[in-house]
């Protein structure tokens, strides 16, 4: 049974409904807008929210990039990229600078984004208060009343128990002094980058929520004066490109505990190596080396 689907899979009415939710999200930064999420041809949890957001903002002239864990070649990034190649026929690129729309899971690209770019996040649990209060009816009230005491108590208890805030990813932020927002499960290393020139859209398909950050929105990671927020990464430089500012993956090399550290952002690493940077265990870049 073959069938032609509409441009970018979703029908136009659905896309309009999603765009309305996006516009509302941009108008009220950090507020979770309910939307009538559709069943997509990939499972919930695979990025259906991000896919629906991307599908409703893509135009035929756009170039799209898809990353998962910062990498273009992770299986699910490949699968989502293929989905848009097939259903929207848009051009795709692995180069951050060439992309108009970047859909991501768990990372923000190392390279600064521009005003004409849109970053779309896949969000599993949009509610930053969810693990403090499982009821949606309660958490919506807490947001409405700006009742965030529970979150501060949680962070305080972390410090009193562990000597540090024991949240290392999906670290909560406050948007324009109003809504506490879950930045999706990006490592807290990425949190400072949430203040950027590009539009940021967050889609949670299963939970039926969309939220957004307009360009240059003030985004503050929650902390205390005496325990300030600290973005952290492995204390190494990339072994392939030598960068000491990028977020690193730790790769186990052998069964004797040997390991190396490499950029999680594959395009960032590739372009640095192409520009002649060589890390401690790297070799000079060749186009086909990888």
């Amino acid at each position, binding site marked *: *049974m073959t*069938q032609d*689907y509409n441009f970018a*899979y979703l*029908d136009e009415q659905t896309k309009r409904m999603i765009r309305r939710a996006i516009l509302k999200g941009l108008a009220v930064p950090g507020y979770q807008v*309910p939307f*009538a*999420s*559709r*069943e*997509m041809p990939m*499972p*919930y*949890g*695979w990025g259906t929210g991000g896919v629906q957001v991307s599908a409703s903002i893509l135009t035929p002239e756009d170039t799209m990039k898809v990353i*998962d864990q*910062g990498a273009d*070649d*992770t*299986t*699910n*990034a*490949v699968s989502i990229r293929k989905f848009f190649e097939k259903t929207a026929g848009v051009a795709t690129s692995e180069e951050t600078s060439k992309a108009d729309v970047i859909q991501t*899971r*768990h990372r923000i690209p190392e390279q600064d984004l521009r005003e004409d770019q849109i970053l779309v996040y896949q969000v*599993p649990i949009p509610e930053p208060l969810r693990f403090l209060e499982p*009821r*949606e*009816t309660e958490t919506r009230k807490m947001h409405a009343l700006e009742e965030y005491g529970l979150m501060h108590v949680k962070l305080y208890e972390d410090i009193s128990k*562990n*000597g*540090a805030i*024991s949240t*290392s*990813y*999906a670290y909560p932020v406050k948007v324009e002094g109003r809504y506490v927002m879950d930045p999706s*499960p*990006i*490592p*807290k*290393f990425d949190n400072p980058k949430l203040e950027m020139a590009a539009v940021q859209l967050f889609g949670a398909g*299963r939970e*039926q*929520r969309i939220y957004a950050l307009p360009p240059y929105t003030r985004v503050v990671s929650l902390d205390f004066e005496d325990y300030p927020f600290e973005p*952290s990464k*492995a204390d190494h430089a990339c*072994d*392939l490109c030598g960068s000491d500012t990028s*977020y690193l*993956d*730790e790769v186990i*090399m052998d069964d004797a505990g040997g390991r*190396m550290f*490499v950029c*999680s952002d*594959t395009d960032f690493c590739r372009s640095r190596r192409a520009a002649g940077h060589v890390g401690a*265990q790297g*070799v000079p870049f060749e186009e086909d*080396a*990888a």
Partner: protein
Amino acid sequence: MYVAVKGGEKAIDAAHAWLAEERRGDVTVPELSVAQIREQMALAVNRVMAEGSLYDPDLAALAIKQARGDLIEAIFLIRAYRTTLPRFGYSNPVDTEKMACDRRISATFKDAPGGQVLGPTFDYTHRLLDFKLAADGEVPEAPTRETQTGPVPHITDFLNQEGLIQTEPTSDEAPRDLTREPLELPADRALRLQSLTRGDEGFILGMAYSTQRGYARNHAFVGELRIGTCAVEMDIPELGFAVEIGEIELTECETVNQFAGSKTEPPQFTRGYGLVFGQTERKAISMALVDRALRWQEMGEDNLGAAAQDAEFVLYHADNIQATGFLEHIKLPHYVDFQSELELVRKMRADAQAQTMPEAAE
């Protein structure tokens, strides 16, 4: 020398090819046809239609074939297909009183106008493996009798004549559509029923069973269970009247529940309701029990803190496509987050060690 693993694309293609081969199985065994699945796996087809929210036995059978018999996967295929279909409008409510019943039983009355009709049920079979089926599937012809025509009144209506059972409020208001609007709470009964009818059979069964075992017990009698076909009619604006556009098989269950009365209501019986596509009676009965449990507020009953009374808990966790997606997504790569956890645990361990051995640190 480390080279980042590439070739995700090739791996995916190869995995899909292998999957297709596994689906087919041993090629010396004849391939299943969609028609065979539709005719001989009808209850699986019914479940896929009910939880997929799409009444199309052929597509459901195709989905089961494609999903290698994994019904949740088949339901997912149907759901994903369903969302792409254009909406022409909404049918009129089906009139189950006019159902052509294959089965109609009541546990509350020995007999009733229209009679008890057992229909094709497993109920009184002995669950002994029938090894004859392994050899050949020939079946003797079942006896037949004249079909009864005319309306089949709902049995709970007889109770209503005495005012013994609660009258449900009627409304011509169009109910909210769960598939077109986000689920928002509080959910009214129409919305709850929509969620239950497409909810996972196992989940709804477990919830219903928990009420029977005392977690918000509301002792339920099966007032009536009926299975049969109903006409689906739709108003055609250009014509100015409704036309029949097809018929569907449905299972409907009405339970009669004890109710001692409350501050606002006199003692009377109350109802739970289940309506599901196809012959799906386990699901329909479960649905009726859970529906009744979720009505505690309007009945002025106590919240006993039972899971089946908690609309947010039931409605947010009944959908197996949402549940399986989120559950299974944890097998996707999470190494970036894991890395940040690694760094944090290492740092916290180092801090803790420095504290327990202050001399060494100094």
